[in-house]
């Protein structure tokens, strides 16, 4: 009890510290000063009156959202004496593996640099700057010679590294048993099984609610709000509407499954299922839209996150995501983006060519995203120069690569992070941005949303860590789900040399972008935001295999298995997930 309290006060202190430096703080201060003019603010009860004013004017809500946002990215609490590396990654062997992977990437980048005699960075001559400025909106028409550039690495290279990960302290003996993990990932990380995936939804939202409760009198307890927003207990509300038939549960373990990703339950309305043409809109969709509009009107991040677990109506999605990610386009943000743009104009970075190459290889050829090619350059080039991204390395197992001013190798005073944001793009990186173009067409807003999505989620997909949403855990989760619930399929695929992870890895690394149809992808990303976790990617990957199991059982080679799973564009994500989580017979 005592420990929890002191943990909590530590967290509170850290968040307060963080927010003190933010723009919101100065705005609140200004508002507080301005409010002194108001008649209802009396000297005797100054503190209470100002608090009341904040509540009424919506500023408290903004503060709440900011706190909520910080909580969402806040790393799991650890021992107060733990060194900063532990925040990045508690397990030593993982840290080591990430370190050596980074060395390899850097080596590859440097050798490309030397081979092509291109500097990592150079200042553009004025003429070139002008030209680029003119062409800012159509950089896609530029056809620089990229033939000599290679992507620094591709997902399959990364997979090889993960396959070779070993915990030196772990000895599982030579004898095979039914416990032996048949998959490629051989590290002992704890991953959830289907019943636990169920409890995921419930515990996550409870933890947040408790934290907020304890934050002090200023924060309103969302539980006290009249059941306007769909919470766990409002499951009943939708059960009455009876969208789909429930399952008969004799098995207590399966009972727990009903709590599965709680809100994805069969009894609960989902967008992506219950808005299809056969279902009359009155049953679920209309009400869901109405609630969504209410959530937006209230501007409550926590409520939005809870709401979006059942999917977002297309018209509300852009605003909901912005609310959940706590992005509000202030003039300062636009200015910041313009500043980044100026940086792009003035300096040319080697990674720019990598970005060009990546876009040309992936998004430009994509049926859905080719239209937005130019937006991708505008976002990614600026992203590379954004040093505010460096702060996320505090909880990322990766570290930004360091480079030295020419001739000053090893001298710390001349060390810079390269690229400025510390993130080296790999093959397929631009696909993280592409789907967002369907929602935001204003470059600075698109940029902000992407940046936030990256520092909350996407970075975990290409760094080696033990985090439950990290790619290693996702791979293990995928393999474990498959081995536990589809053992025959898994064994068969393994026998023919088609380890399932070899096929599904690329889906997960890209968060399925470019593999699913866009409307389905957006429904999937709704749930990533809603559950603040990437685990759903592994579950979906397993669900896809389950769906095509019959065909997969008949193939006799890796190539044939790839062919069966080559085209995911017709898949409907939500029914697949529901079937896998709720209707899989153990």
């Amino acid at each position, binding site marked *: 009890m005592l420990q929890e309290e002191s943990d909590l006060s530590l967290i509170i202190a850290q968040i307060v510290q963080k927010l003190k430096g933010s723009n919101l703080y100065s705005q609140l201060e200004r508002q507080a000063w301005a409010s002194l003019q108001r008649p209802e603010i009396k000297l005797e009860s100054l503190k209470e009156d100002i608090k009341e004013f904040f509540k009424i004017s919506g500023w408290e809500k903004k503060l709440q959202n900011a706190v909520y946002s910080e909580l969402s990215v806040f790393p799991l609490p650890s021992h107060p004496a733990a060194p900063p590396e532990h925040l990045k990654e508690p397990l030593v062997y993982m840290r080591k593996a990430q370190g050596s992977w980074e060395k390899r990437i850097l080596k590859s980048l440097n050798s490309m640099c030397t081979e092509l005699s291109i500097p990592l960075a150079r200042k553009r001559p004025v003429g070139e700057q002008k030209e680029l400025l003119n062409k800012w909106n159509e950089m896609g028409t530029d056809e620089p010679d990229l033939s000599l550039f290679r992507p620094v690495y591709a997902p399959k290279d990364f997979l090889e590294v993960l396959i070779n990960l070993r915990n030196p302290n772990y000895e599982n003996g030579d004898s095979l048993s039914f416990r032996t993990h048949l998959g490629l990932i051989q590290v002992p990380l704890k991953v959830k099984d289907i019943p636990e995936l169920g409890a995921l939804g419930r515990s996550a939202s409870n933890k947040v609610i408790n934290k907020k409760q304890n934050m002090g009198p200023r924060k309103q307890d969302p539980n006290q709000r009249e059941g306007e927003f769909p919470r766990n207990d409002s499951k009943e509300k939708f059960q009455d509407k009876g969208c789909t038939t429930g399952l008969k549960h004799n098995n207590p373990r399966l009972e727990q499954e009903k709590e599965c990703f709680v809100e994805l339950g069969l009894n609960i309305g989902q967008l992506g299922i219950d808005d299809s*043409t056969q279902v009359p809109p009155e049953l679920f969709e209309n009400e869901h839209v109405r609630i969504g509009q209410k959530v937006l009107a209230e501007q409550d991040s926590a409520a939005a996150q809870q709401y979006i677990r059942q999917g977002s109506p*297309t*018209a509300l999605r852009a605003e909901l995501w912005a609310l959940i990610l706590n992005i509000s386009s202030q003039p300062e943000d636009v200015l910041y983006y313009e500043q980044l743009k100026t940086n792009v104009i003035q300096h040319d970075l080697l990674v720019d060519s990598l970005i060009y190459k990546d876009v040309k290889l992936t998004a430009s*050829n994509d*049926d859905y995203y080719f*239209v937005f*090619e*130019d937006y991708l350059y505008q976002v990614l080039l600026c992203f590379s120069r954004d040093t505010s991204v460096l702060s996320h390395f505090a909880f990322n197992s990766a570290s930004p690569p360091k480079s030295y001013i020419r001739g000053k190798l090893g001298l710390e005073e001349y060390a810079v992070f390269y690229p400025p944001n510390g993130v080296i793009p790999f093959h397929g990186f631009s696909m993280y941005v592409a789907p967002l173009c369907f*929602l935001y067409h204003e470059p600075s807003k698109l940029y902000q949303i992407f940046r936030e999505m990256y520092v909350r989620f996407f970075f975990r997909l290409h760094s080696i860590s033990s985090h439950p949403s990290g790619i290693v855990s996702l791979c293990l989760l995928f393999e474990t789900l498959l081995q536990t619930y589809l053992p025959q399929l898994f064994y068969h695929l393994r026998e023919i040399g088609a380890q399932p992870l070899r096929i599904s890895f690329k889906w997960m690394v890209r968060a399925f972008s470019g593999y699913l149809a866009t409307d389905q992808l957006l429904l999937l990303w709704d749930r990533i935001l809603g559950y603040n976790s990437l685990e759903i990617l592994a579950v979906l990957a397993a669900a896809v295999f389950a769906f095509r199991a019959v065909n997969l059982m008949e193939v006799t080679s890796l190539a044939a298995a790839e062919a069966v799973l080559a085209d995911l564009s017709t898949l409907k994500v939500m029914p697949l997930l529901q079937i896998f989580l709720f209707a899989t017979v153990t």
Partner: protein
Amino acid sequence: MAGKVKWVTDIEKSVLINNFEKRGWVQVTENEDWNFYWMSVQTIRNVFSVEAGYRLSDDQIVNHFPNHYELTRKDLMVKNIKRYRKELEKEGSPLAEKDENGKYLYLDFVPVTYMLPADYNLFVEEFRKSPSSTWIMKPCGKAQGKGIFLINKLSQIKKWSRDSKTSSFVSQSNKEAYVISLYINNPLLIGGRKFDLRLYVLVSTYRPLRCYMYKLGFCRFCTVKYTPSTSELDNMFVHLTNVAIQKHGDYNHIHGGKWTVSNLRLYLESTRGKEVTSKLFDEIHWIIVQSLKAVAPVMNNDKHCFECYGYDIIIDDKLKPWLIEVNASPSLTSSTANDRILKYNLINDTLNIAVPNGEIPDCKWNKSPPKEVLGNYEILYDEELAQGDGADRELRSRQGQSLGPRAGRSRDSGRAVLTTWK
């Protein structure tokens, strides 16, 4: 039914031939006894010309209406629509209501167009009213973007008429007739690029009007960023979306510069909202139906005929759709793999509706296929149903939900009270 369907075609495209063969139909020549003839527009002209004296028997079907050009020639389409509007106005129909500027509220879906040389003076008058406008010159009888150019000065027309073979406007032969339309220089841009919509509409009969819209239409994007700048008026890659033109530019053979209509819908709903998007799609359905109604009275509603049209529609930045033209012979060439699949399925669904059960046709049938065979088509407008009971429910599909209020209007043939439609 005895015997297999015997087919002929003078368009050698695999999407057609594969569909015939998969039905087990037998290929014959045009001189033999045939049941189904997929004709080019030249052939249909010959078949139905007065001199030919061709008589089609009850078990013969062709894929064009004899005088389809009333809809598919640019000048005749405009003429028919203008006539239709005037008729409605004379009747006092609420459909023909105008706003305070004299523009039709519901029937203003074709850009201002004049026939050249006949309406030259009228055109000049209009041009002088807004001298900074751009106009687009299109030859009446050509396709694939051939012969099209943009002008923004009267002198450019004069130059063109001088450069063409005839010495004066008056002696222009019918073949070289042009239309000149107000160019929509504020098209809706996505990713900074201009695009148009290609929608397929199947008409099985004009009186009563029964037409179907193919759900899988697509958008054709220009490969180059759009600019209304006058210096780029000559750059056809900026302005003309025809694949025949774009494919000579920076053309990508994987996606072909095409988007599905559902992508467009998703994008618009996400960025503009559901109401305005639904309104846009309603209006698109509306203008297609109105264009068909406009030509229905003059169409030779030969019972041996059906036709699949390619509608070209442009959306401007106020989300208003404009009908640009209707093609009688939409291209069956495939520029990408997806394209091939789409066109194959299009023909497949078309044949399922036009030739029921794939059996030897009897053109006396009521042309009312059961719902199951529609495939990717959905009923756009069925005059018989609209005039009967329960019209609203029949016509309302979830996607064209808004067909409801429109259908209500059409049902009354413009005589009853107009439902205000936001």
